[in-house]
């Protein structure tokens, strides 16, 4: 693992890249990213290269297509049945934005309330510090094992690896996380981390890695789940420390929340003597009442259920019920760097539902591993570069993430808190090009803009392109282009430039004649039918067509 001090980051608002630790000479300082070389916020290859390998995996493609399409359908059904879905999204978006605006006071309030109720609050500047805090707390209990509830934050900081290096075994208890952990693998989806594995693979992993498992175990999902239940039950009953993440932390009351399905979360949050929760600072919510919004938005967007099987809400320590000791670790790790970005900060509103992954045509083809980060998919492509930076090293793989999108916008429509991911992608691309200095691409873009902003030059360039007709075959099709355009002709043809541009047609007698003929035809047809009522009036009327929507598969969610 390499490590280096936080590098200057000229894409940041003040351009100085000074790593912040508070105000310097009265001027606000740019907060630092997650330290380079720590945690799981950077892959080892750029996205296109990583994607190429994943694209070749037929099994993965099949699993992903089936999974993403299934969840998509379920999500549309349960969001469609709520008449106030759009109003819930509006409220969710506003609550999160308001939260970010008031983050200092809300975190202080959360700290005060948790402390009042018998919990202890710790602050971590980055993943390294959070790992140290958790390790120290576990060591203080004398246990060399912890049980874990699926948590994005602890994956992000590489907590399990750190605990292991200190002789503490961390047992993932979510079924999918267990599969991933036993296989020595990495999660590939926020919600269903083992989506890249099929049942036979999981059976083999269980047979090989679960001590004492029935060697005749078959690949029936219910049997596999039962094997995991038997294995983990012993852990739940005996391990005295649990580590969790949190979906929400309520400032007003000090209440923490974990949303889950299997009951492993309830086990971890209830049975051990000590509970340690690691929560990103952006997960705070102002009021208890805000749960009424997010407990509707999250399950419906995430699993496509009206409600997930289990949600736990706890406030500090309750004598006689649950852990006797509760620690809350509040994690920065680059979040404040994102918060400092006027546009990019919107990514912090994410509630980790994974709806954007499930609708993303890119994620659907490549899967989560290609993104190289704990956070895959569209939200990962905007969150990862902001938390960890995208120009921290030469050819930083994170700089390829904002380009891992066709900007189709499906993620924006699916997001329960209305994060405009396409706009964030475009913004991060811009920050990257600003950071990248002079590149061949930038020079080409400059040259193109210089030509295109001068009509005479543009017209001349159009003429210069005409000889491309010569490279086309007799069928007027171009089937092979040189780099960097060969990626196109690997699987697509390109038509040869036409004989005449539009502007030369428009200026020609042929063009003028065509328009005269069209005008004449229009006049005749309008005279002929004596002005049909459909013509020339306000278009609103057409909305009343009884068949206006019939058979239309693609009216946007906005119109619901």
């Amino acid at each position, binding site marked *: 693992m390499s490590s280096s001090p936080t590098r200057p980051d000229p894409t940041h608002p003040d351009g100085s890249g000074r790593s912040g630790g508070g105000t310097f000479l009265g001027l606000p300082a740019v907060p630092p990213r997650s330290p380079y070389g720590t945690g799981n916020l950077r892959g080892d290859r750029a996205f296109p290269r990583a994607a190429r390998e994943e*694209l070749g995996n037929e099994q993965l493609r099949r699993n992903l297509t089936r999974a993403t399409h299934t969840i998509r359908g379920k999500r549309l059904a349960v969001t469609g049945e709520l008449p106030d879905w759009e109003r819930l999204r509006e409220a969710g978006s506003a609550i999160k934005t308001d939260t970010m605006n008031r983050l200092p006071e809300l975190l202080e309030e959360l700290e005060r309330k948790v402390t009042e109720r018998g919990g202890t609050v710790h602050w971590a500047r980055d993943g390294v510090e959070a790992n140290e805090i958790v390790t120290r707390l576990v060591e203080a209990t004398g246990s060399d094992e912890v049980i874990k509830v699926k948590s994005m934050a602890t994956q992000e900081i590489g907590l399990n690896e750190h605990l292991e290096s200190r002789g503490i075994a961390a047992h993932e208890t979510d079924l999918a996380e267990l599969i991933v952990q036993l296989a020595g693998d990495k999660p590939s989806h926020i919600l269903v981390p083992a989506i890249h594995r099929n049942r036979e693979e999981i059976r083999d992993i269980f047979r090989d890695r679960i001590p004492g498992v029935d060697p005749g175990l078959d690949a029936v999902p219910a049997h596999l789940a039962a094997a995991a239940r038997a294995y983990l039950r012993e852990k739940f009953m005996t391990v005295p420390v649990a580590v969790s993440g949190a979906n929400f932390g309520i400032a007003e009351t000090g209440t923490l929340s974990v949303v889950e399905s299997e009951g492993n979360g309830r086990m971890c949050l209830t049975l051990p003597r000590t509970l340690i929760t690691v929560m990103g600072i952006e997960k705070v919510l102002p009021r208890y009442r805000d749960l009424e919004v997010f407990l509707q938005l999250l399950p419906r967007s995430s699993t496509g259920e009206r409600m997930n099987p289990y949600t736990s809400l706890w406030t500090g320590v309750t004598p006689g019920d649950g852990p006797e000791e509760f620690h809350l670790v509040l994690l920065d790790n680059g979040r404040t760097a994102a918060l400092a970005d006027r546009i990019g900060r919107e990514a912090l509103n994410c509630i980790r539902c994974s709806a954007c992954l499930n609708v993303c045509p890119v994620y659907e083809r490549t899967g989560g591993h290609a993104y190289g980060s704990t956070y895959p998919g569209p939200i990962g492509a905007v969150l990862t570069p902001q938390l960890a930076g995208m120009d921290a090293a030469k050819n930083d793989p994170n700089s390829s993430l904002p*380009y891992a999108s066709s900007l189709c916008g499906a993620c924006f429509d699916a997001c329960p808190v209305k994060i405009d991911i396409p706009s964030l992608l475009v913004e991060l691309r811009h920050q990257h090009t600003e950071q990248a200095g002079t590149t061949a691409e930038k020079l080409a873009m400059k040259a193109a*803009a210089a030509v295109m902003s001068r009509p005479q030059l543009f017209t001349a360039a159009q003429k210069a392109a005409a000889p491309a007709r010569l490279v086309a075959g007799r069928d007027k099709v171009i089937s092979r282009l040189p780099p960097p355009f060969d*990626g196109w002709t690997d*699987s697509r043809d390109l*038509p040869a430039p*036409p004989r005449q541009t539009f502007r030369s047609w428009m200026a020609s007698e042929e063009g003028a004649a065509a328009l005269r003929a069209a005008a004449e035809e229009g006049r005749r047809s309008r005279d002929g039918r004596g002005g049909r009522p459909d013509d020339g009036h306000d278009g609103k009327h057409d909305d009343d067509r009884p068949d206006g929507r019939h058979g239309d598969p693609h009216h*946007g969610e906005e119109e619901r």
Partner: protein
Amino acid sequence: MRIGLFATCLGDTLFPDAVKATAVLLTRLGHDVVFPPGQTCCGQMHVNTGYQREPVPLVRNFADQFGDPSLDAVVMPSGSCAGSVRHQHEIVADRYGDEALRAGVAAVKAKTYELSELLVDVLGVTDVGAWFPHRVTYHPTCHSLRMLRVGDKPLRLLRAVDGIDLVELPQADACCGFGGTFALKNAGTSAAMLQDKTDHVRSTGADVCTAGDSSCLMHIGGGLSRIKAGTRTLHLAQILAATRTAPLPLPQPEAAR
């Protein structure tokens, strides 16, 4: 109505038939189509690839060319270029432009429309008097659908076409994988998306796949041509411009344009 026509750099250079059809259609409907000759490109490719300083002169040129107050509306046969004018020019002007540019951009943005929006919302027509006796499937391009929210306006226009056999495209709202420079930077992923799109197009048995954007059609058409699918691509404007008097003969499938 006096309508400024923006050909788009791609339409002007590579797909003039779609722009000609737009001019013919609007003229047939009785409008005055104006082509400001100094027009070039909206700068969408620059912005979407991460460049916001470089397209400032393009944004300025667009605002200058179409700012003419005698133009009642500005139309372009491209959802993504209309999206750029309406959503991105402001970003560029705010960040790297001056006060005059911001004012110019705001004025043009307010009267800029993609073709189906202009026809249905502004001109109030769905039946444009077209005749096109062929089997057609419609791909709603991402920026028309999710950036401009044109909804079912293109389909309403197509349903009113005389003689048309309109068939639904499976998973129509899925991206074709073009995404501008995405098709080059992530060519493999883009090609995987395209393959699913061309499979779906082929499954409809349509003679023609249409859409409101020549760039997406160039992509889909390039894929259909490579696999010799037998389905051609035509811009929505070309179908709407075709009449019994001036019919559009089906081009050869290979000459995808």
